Every structure is written in C-alpha cells, then in structure tokens.
C-alpha cells in the first residue's frame, strides 16, 4: 500500500502560540487512521491545514505526490475535490433543507430542480440510516445524533477518496456514538476510502482505527496499530488511554 497522504514538518502558530511544531505523518491508501490527543492540542488545526482552510506556516503536505501547501485557485479546488469532511459541530447549513445540504457539493450549492438529485439525497440518507421524510426538514428540527448522520451523509455524498472526521462522537450518548462508529466504519469500507478520524473517545478509536497516532505538544509522539494501543510503552499514550490525571501530560488548570 502506497501512502496517500504524506505530511512532513507541518508547523502552524497563532501569534506567539505554537500549535503544530513540525508534524510528520503518513496515511496509507485505504487505511483508517485515528488521531488522538487532548483538547486544544491542535487536532482540528491539523485537519484544516490539510484541507487548505488554514495556511500552514511551514512543511509539506502531499496528496498522491502532489504538494498541497501553497496551492490556490483552481488547483486547490481540484485537490479539495478528493476530500470530504465531517465537522465537529456538524456545520450543516441551517437555511437549507436536509436534502439540499446532502447534495450541496454535487451542484456547488446551486438549487437544481429535478427528482434525480432529491432521490440521490434520499438514497444517501438511507446509507446513514435516515428515513426519506427527513429530507425536507431543516437541520434545526433534528436531534444531535440525526444532525451528525446528515453531516456524515453530506460528507460522503460526493464519494471522496479521503474523508476526515472531526470528533464524530463528541456530544452523543454512548449508544448513538456506537451507531455513528459503525456507520463510519461501514461507509468508509464500502467506498474503499481512506479515513482520518480525530477523537478523544477511546471506545470510538478502538472501533474505527486500523492505526492510531497521538498528537501532543505539536508533534506526533507515538503511532502504531490499534492492537498495540494497550502495550505502547509510551507514557503519554498510557496516560491518555487510561484517562489519568497524573503523568507526563500536564493539564493547565487556571482559575
């Protein structure tokens, strides 16, 4: 398996605050990589750098050998067409009905009439276990779990090669979280897509991951197969996996 996505030396600072400090990471084609790490360690920033939503200060991000850092205009649009993204809060367009949300990428936001597009939306909703009558509702009329599913449907509708999931189970009850895990696993496998998931939910990580990487202090401090998670021999990973307050990771607690 060749590496689909190769990050080397990716750095990003906001003002004097260094968030990413030379991240090196490879994602193989067709694999499911889970990135774990505490809140505020820059996991979302890392994804946004890959997607070109945030410009990395330094380093290289290559997709199938093509350099993404520094791309703009049409070349950037083209590169982005390989990506799908499930945002942390869903980020559904609250002014549009569910079915227009799901097909948004297919028409670049244009309101195209016709049954076909609507039917495609309904079929995509079915893939994430939602009934057809959800199609005409507004996102605000849905529960949190249903919103996550619609966001998932929207991310997979255009059949991207690489899908990013930013904390897909945060804010859901354990049962709904497991439903979402199963859906992610099944849809990624069905499409033969590459998946990169960010989470601090260890149950979710164990379920979704082929491989796990841990981000801490702006760097990847450990990576390995999910089976090695409990015997990583890495103090950071141990502390995180077992959720202990004591260890090398110091939470800054201020009043």
């Amino acid at each position: 398996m060749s590496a689909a996505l190769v990050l080397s030396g990716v750095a990003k600072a906001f003002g004097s605050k260094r968030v990413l400090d030379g991240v090196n990471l490879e994602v193989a084609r067709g694999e499911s990589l889970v990135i774990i790490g505490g809140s505020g360690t820059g996991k979302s920033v890392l994804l946004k750098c890959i997607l070109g939503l945030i410009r990395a200060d330094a380093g290289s991000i290559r997709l199938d050998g093509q350099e993404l850092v520094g791309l703009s205009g049409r070349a950037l649009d083209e590169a982005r067409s390989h990506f799908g993204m499930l945002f942390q809060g869903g980020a559904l367009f609250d002014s549009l009905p569910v079915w227009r949300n799901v097909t948004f990428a297919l028409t670049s936001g244009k309101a195209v009439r016709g049954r076909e597009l609507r039917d495609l939306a309904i079929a995509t909703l079915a893939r994430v276990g939602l009934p057809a009558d959800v199609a005409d509702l507004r996102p605000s009329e849905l529960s949190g779990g249903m919103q996550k599913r619609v966001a998932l449907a929207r991310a997979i509708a255009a059949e991207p090669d690489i899908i990013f999931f930013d904390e897909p189970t945060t804010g859901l009850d354990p049962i709904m979280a497991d439903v979402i895990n199963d859906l992610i696993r099944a849809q990624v496998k069905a499409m033969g897509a590459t998946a990169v998931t960010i989470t601090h939910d260890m149950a979710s990580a164990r379920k979704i991951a082929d491989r796990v990487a841990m981000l801490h202090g702006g760097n990847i401090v450990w990576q390995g197969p999910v089976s090695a998670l409990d015997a990583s021999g890495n103090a950071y990973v141990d502390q995180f996996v077992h959720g202990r307050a004591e260890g090398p990771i110091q939470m800054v607690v201020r009043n």
Partner: protein
Amino acid sequence: MTKLLLPLIALGAFALRAFGVIGQLAIFAGTALGRAVRPPWYPARLGEQMALIGWFSLPVVGLTALFTGAALAQQIYVGGSRFNASSTVPAVTVIAIVRELGPVLAGLMVAGRVSSAMAAELATMRVTEQLDAMVTLRTDPWRYLIAPRMLASTLMLPLLVLVANIIGVMGGYLIATTRLGFNGAGYLETTRRFLETDDVVSSLVKAAVFGFIIALAGCFHGYHSSGGAAGVGRATTHAVVTAFILILLTNLVITVLVFGA
C-alpha cells in the same frame, strides 16, 4: 498636562485604527469583485438578496422619508417667514430631500437593518464552521454568499432612494397643502421646476455607493468574525458603526465634489 492630551491620544489611536480598517475593507472589496466576475454565478441567491434588501426595507425607508419631508417643510416655512421667503418651501424641500436627506436617511436606515443582519448571519456561519464546510463542499463563499449580497445591495439602494425621494417630497406636500396654505398644483409645479437632472443623478450615485458600503461593512465584519457568540455581537455592532461612518463620510465627499465647484 498629560491628562489634557489623553483624549487627543485616544483620537489619534482611533484614526490609525480607522485607516487600517479602510485598507482592509478595500482589500476585501477587491477580492469580492475579483471572485464575482468569474463563474459560477448564483442568480437565485442574488434574487433572494434583492427581495430581502429592497422589498423588506420599503416600509422603514418610506416612513422615515415621509416624516422627515413633512418636518422639513414645516421648518423651512417657519424659518423662511422670518425674511419673507416662506414661498421657497417647495424648492428648498425638494433639493434638500433629493440631494441629501433621501440618500443619507435611506442609507442609514438600510444600514441599520441590512449591515447588521449580514454581519450576524456570516459571523454565525463562521462560528459554526459553515463557511469552512462550504469550502470543503466545492463552493466558494465569496461567490455564493458575498458577491450576491454586495451586488443586490448596490442595485437596490438606488431604487429605495428613488422611493424615499418621492415620498419625502410628498411628506412636504402634505404639510404644505394641509397646514401652510399652499396650493397643491402650484406646489408640485414649483417642485418640478426646481429639480434638475444633476440632483437626481447625484442622488442615485450616492445611493449606489451607500448600497455597496452597506453590504461591504456587513460582509467584512461577519466574514472576519471570531470568538463565539460574543464575536457575533461584536461583528454586528462594528458593521453598523462602519457603515454609518463611511456613509456620512462618502456623502460629504460626493456633495463637495458635485456641488462644491
């Protein structure tokens, strides 16, 4: 001594910040125009914004123009009668309305409605990552959200100002004929005679400029907002303040350029 200088220092800091913002606004406007000239275009979004800005601003703009026109005619009558010039009411009213009050009042009223609404909507989309999501869904927010708003606002303000001018003159007419003893036909005839093409053209040019400013301020502060719910509130306030200041400033500049020579 230094205490006395404090307000001056604050004023200087404000001026510096204002210049910075004007520079950023210019870059923002340039980016929007650059993106807007190339497809995809979104005519449905444009139509939606034209209805939202034009149609739904009619009541507030009409009301403002009516009451201001009436009050203006009354004051000109009172002021003019001090030197036997109360017959100038129709001429002075129409010139004051068309050259200044119609565009400025309509601009300010629409800025209060529209700049704030645009800023709040875009800022909320920024906070909830809808703008980022749009980009990953192969849609450019500049073309989908910003360009239609700027174009619609620039197109609709001249129409609104036209309506404001007519209703403003009618407000003066109503007061003059019902309370000040003017003859209806004579009032309208004088109004028509004193109004020149330049007055109308400058009025509509001002309107288009104000329309552009209204959407620019709203989109700029919404698009660049940060910091959660408080950020949305800040974006809304800044949008209205920016629009107000720029409208009053450009109004003075256009007035001096057109009528000062």
